[in-house]
């Protein structure tokens, strides 16, 4: 922790300022989107549970900025950042969180089931680790079809204690599939410290034990995440098989937006607050010569956009109730049918 800004300063002269300024824009958009979503709880606009990724934005942006639109992404219940970074429409997403017509999934999924197949985002998932076999299967299909696309599967540190983690990584290796597993390690399995629940050295060691190359990086350093993700995805394209990126970050909120997270150590929280990934990237850019005005603009524009989106989503109608019965399955009538 705390080294990212120094590293950024060291390499400031070589930094691709345009690329990282765009990343800063996206990170602020994620932060502003989630803060708006959390704020909306006061107005009862977000209805079910939401799981903010505030503090983890560098992972979403650093990974997704290395993916093409047609590449495939599998995400988690804490997936707003991944989804935005993959290019999903923020207004449609906010409508989905509010359960409104025009939501990404027509209001049928909500925060935990956002998917946008148009941008290759194959779904958040309400079940921890369940996206791992699905990602392996998506990559399996790409290989069967002889496609050049790749798959990225992001999951949390809690997921590595579920069976599908073992099954999915083993599968990906056995079939030599183009999938990058990203363990977005925010330190918590719901409301419990993952370290207290995890035997052995963790995600990277487990991946390596199955023959997947693995790398542990500072997940709050957007520059480091970008570099590692770019190298990993290049290796996938070169046919070098699946791999894992272990990104160490920190969840600045509770498990859900309404969890006060009293189980955390205050000093720990403050330490991580000082390592805020957005502020670190902003500082890196400043040192690299990006103007204060441009850096401030990134934040201001993001909050202005999300304020507008918030209002627009709030003013959107509910889905037509007939949609309750659509897209269940082609065969059979899901409604009760009186005999006639």
């Amino acid at each position, binding site marked *: 922790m705390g080294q990212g800004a120094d590293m950024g300063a060291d390499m400031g002269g070589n930094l691709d300022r345009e690329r990282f300024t765009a990343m800063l824009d996206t990170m602020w958009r994620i932060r502003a989107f989630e803060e708006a979503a959390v704020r909306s709880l006061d107005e009862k606009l977000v209805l079910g549970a939401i799981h903010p990724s505030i503090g983890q934005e560098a992972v979403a942006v650093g990974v997704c900025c290395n993916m093409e639109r047609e590449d495939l992404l599998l995400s988690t219940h804490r997936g707003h950042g991944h989804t935005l970074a993959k290019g999903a429409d923020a207004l449609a997403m906010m409508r989905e969180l509010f359960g409104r017509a025009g939501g990404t*999934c027509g209001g049928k*999924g909500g925060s935990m089931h956002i998917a946008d197949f148009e941008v290759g985002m*194959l779904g958040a998932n*309400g*079940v921890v680790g369940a996206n791992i076999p699905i990602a392996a299967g*998506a990559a399996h299909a790409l290989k069967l079809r002889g496609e050049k696309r790749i798959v990225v599967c992001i999951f949390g540190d809690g997921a590595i204690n579920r069976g599908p983690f073992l099954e999915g990584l083993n599968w990906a290796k056995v079939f030599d599939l183009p999938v990058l597993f990203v363990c977005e390690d925010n330190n918590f399995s719901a409301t419990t410290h993952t370290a207290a629940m995890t035997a052995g050295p963790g995600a990277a060691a487990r991946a390596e034990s199955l023959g997947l190359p693995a790398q542990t990086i500072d997940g709050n350093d957007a520059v480091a995440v970008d570099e590692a993700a770019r190298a990993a995805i290049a290796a996938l394209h070169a046919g070098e098989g699946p791999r894992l990126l272990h990104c160490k970050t920190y969840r600045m909120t509770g498990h859900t937006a309404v969890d006060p997270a009293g189980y955390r150590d205050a000093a720990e929280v403050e330490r991580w607050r000082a390592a805020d990934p957005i502020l670190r990237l902003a500082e890196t850019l400043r040192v690299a010569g990006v103007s204060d005005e441009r850096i401030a603009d990134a934040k201001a524009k993001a909050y202005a956009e999300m304020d507008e989106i918030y209002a627009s989503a709030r003013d959107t109608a509910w889905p037509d109730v007939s949609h309750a019965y659509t897209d269940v399955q082609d065969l059979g009538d899901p409604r009760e049918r009186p005999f006639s």
Partner: protein
Amino acid sequence: MSDITYLEAGRRAVIEEMQRDERVWALGEDLGRGGVFGQYKGLAEIFGPARIADTPISEACIMGAAVGAAMTGTRPIVEMRFSDFALCAIDELVNQAAKARYMFGGQMRVPMVVREPVGMWRSSAAQHSQSLESWYTHIPGLVVVAPSTPADNLGLLKSAIRNDDPVVYLEHKDLWGFTGPVPEGDHLTPLGEAEIVREGDAVTIVTWSAMRHVCARAAEKLAVEGIAVELIDLRTLWPWDRERVFASVEKTGRLLVVHEAVTVSGFGAEIAASVAEALHHRLKAPVRRLGAPRIPIAYAPPLEDKARVSQDSITDAVRSLIGYAPAS
């Protein structure tokens, strides 16, 4: 028409559909060697190991990978080996495959067939003998199919592979060697359509899977006694053919549902309740169900038999329905 086994019919269905549609592939344990029962024998030689994929013993990942592969332009056939093992993959089937289309607002389909051999067979005991079809009929998003003849195993499996939603396809292990006539050509049995195996006007028996054959023998015997049973093989359990069942019960006024699964919360309860709700005014006797007692399936044959619905219990139940006289 030619006579082939139920097992060969399933194999032929897979071959024909894989030849017809290159997006179709199969994945499961030991498929390259023909599958545990030989249902895939020779297929790896025809289609290659990529489309007849041997997998690790990772049921959750087999099912979950099929979901991802189905979302990504292919049409996987999942082999679960024994339906009991599919319980290791229930999240992937129930929370993922069945719900993806709906919860993602219809952005995509999950066209996959999950073959799950069910039923009692050669003293296979508690973890290799179950019939859990009612678990699946309870889940919105799933189609549930239970073929009982070679012709239907060919025609229903082909239809299942062409269906755009996840299908749980329950073949009965005790029927693998069952031989029967199968039509030539591209034989498709429509999903959701029951078969009237035998017409009669005294009692309607609704059944499926291996119990169809036990019921058919019982009906033969009853015919000798002058009791004309109308025997209906549901074939597809979701969606089930209400029209055909209701029309039959309107005619007979008596219903017996027979299945191999445990009676309690079995799919027979759904049929019994539906008929009771819709046709109570037509019923001449209470609806009856026959299934297994609520015990795990035992290994020793005399104990295992206690979980079996016998031909005699069916004939007894039919006679009791015929002889039913309401208390006055």
